[in-house]
């Protein structure tokens, strides 16, 4: 199995979720993160002083899927999350040795 970890722009979450549902991916885990990268944060102003905020709010997805589907998932995320502007984010893929569904105890691909 593969763990696909994607960092995307927050407002693209809905589009990505829709794309994944179409692929039959039934689950994912999402968290809010701060991104540091080429895209820089906004300048904030408080009482006449400017603060350079270096991070950009991003959303991080984790999707575990079987090996065959992994490539299509990566493509779907990449497509749905793209705006073509800097800061669109990254997708990283790594191996997962085991998966367990806590409710039933099922393991492996059945657990997804």
């Amino acid at each position, binding site marked *: 199995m593969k763990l696909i970890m994607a960092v995307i722009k927050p407002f693209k979450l809905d589009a990505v979720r829709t794309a994944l549902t179409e692929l039959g991916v039934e689950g994912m885990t999402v968290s809010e993160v701060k991104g540091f990268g080429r895209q820089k944060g906004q300048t904030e*102003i*408080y009482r006449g002083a400017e603060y350079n905020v270096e991070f950009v709010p991003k959303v991080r997805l984790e999707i575990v899927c079987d090996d065959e589907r992994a490539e299509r998932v990566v493509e779907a995320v990449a497509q749905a999350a793209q705006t073509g502007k800097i800061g669109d984010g990254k997708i990283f893929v790594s191996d997962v040795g085991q998966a367990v569904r806590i409710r039933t105890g099922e393991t492996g691909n059945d657990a997804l």
Partner: protein
Amino acid sequence: MSVHKYRCGGALLALATILFAFPASAQELSGANTAWILTSTALVLFMTLPGLALFYGGLVQSKNVLSVLMHCFAIACLASVLWLVVVYSLAFDEGSSLVGGLGKVMLSGVSFDALSGDIPESVFFMFQMTFAIITPALIVGAYVERIKFSAVMLISALWLIVVYAPVCHWVWGGGWLAEMGVMDFAGGLVVHATAGTSAVVIVLILGPRAGYPTQLHPPHSPSMTMIGASMLWVGWFGFNAGSALAADGSAGMAMAVTHISAATASLVWIVIEWMKFGKPSLVGVVTGMVAGLATITPASGFVGPIGGLCIGLIGGLVCYWAVGLVKEKLKIDDSLDVFAVHGVGGILGTLAAAVFVTDGFGGAGLADGMTVGSQLGVQATGVVATVAWSAIATMVIVFVVKAICGLRVADDEMEIGLDLSYHGERDYNL
């Protein structure tokens, strides 16, 4: 001689006709004035709790917000008890021209129906107490995020006795500045100049926050700051219009000019930030509001609408400049700009009052025998005396407290945040 007369004396100097209508003795209770001062008392307490506390709390990091609220709350409690025990007496009891006597310690001799002017003395006592609460609480803004709670309590207690009580007596309690005819309607000297000056002195001894000036964190909650600012604005109606000690045209005009000055100074900040950054900020505009309010305070019962507009304009501009001066040029970590806003505003307004009180600006007119020049002289004397005494006395107090319990928290306590380190609490457990 009635305590009340002195207070009025400061406020109504220029309103001679009204003054004559209030013989110092044998007055009757005015229910209407009592109703308005009871209300004003509630409004001014509301300025500190929770107004000022939120205003300051929103500007610090989320790990220190509770400590700021705690400082304001605990100071309010401490000041209230001290006010009863001794400070009220030192400020308003007859005594020398330098400080009041001890005749009113524990409100002794003040019965249910004792009057101060035409309102119950209990009401005058309470109204004035709320000023004694907010003044040391204003100073909190200077030393946030790095001071020990014990130092806050000790400094505030000593400060009320050694700085606030005498200055209040000089100006409102029939002391030497009142005798000179100083004009300070609602506390440009007594409240803002004292607090602003002492703020700088404290932080010069205490030192800056870790990370100052390059690695500061932005205000954790501008919305909390805005809520507090709004409460300050509304409460300031009690502060300034209540200082007329009556529900009459003087109170009405004080409210009007207070409001206009606040609105004008806020717009000034919007315009400056818009021109400078392209983005007028909420924290900026409410800071402008406080600048406008602090500046109008000493002048509020004396000037007319045009005066209010001009004072708001000047207050907004000068305080904006002062914020930059203190923080960027002088590199003093007066963290929430107590001196630049309150100190500078209070002093500026005290001086401006002498100009805008004149008929030409639609003011109530100078007192008999005064010219703009002579009144300006009196006002400047008041400023110099207040600033000097506040600075010297505060310095002594702070060194004493440093010797007793220390001032500064340890570095790792600062890192964890004062909320957990000093109060065992955490906000925002979402």
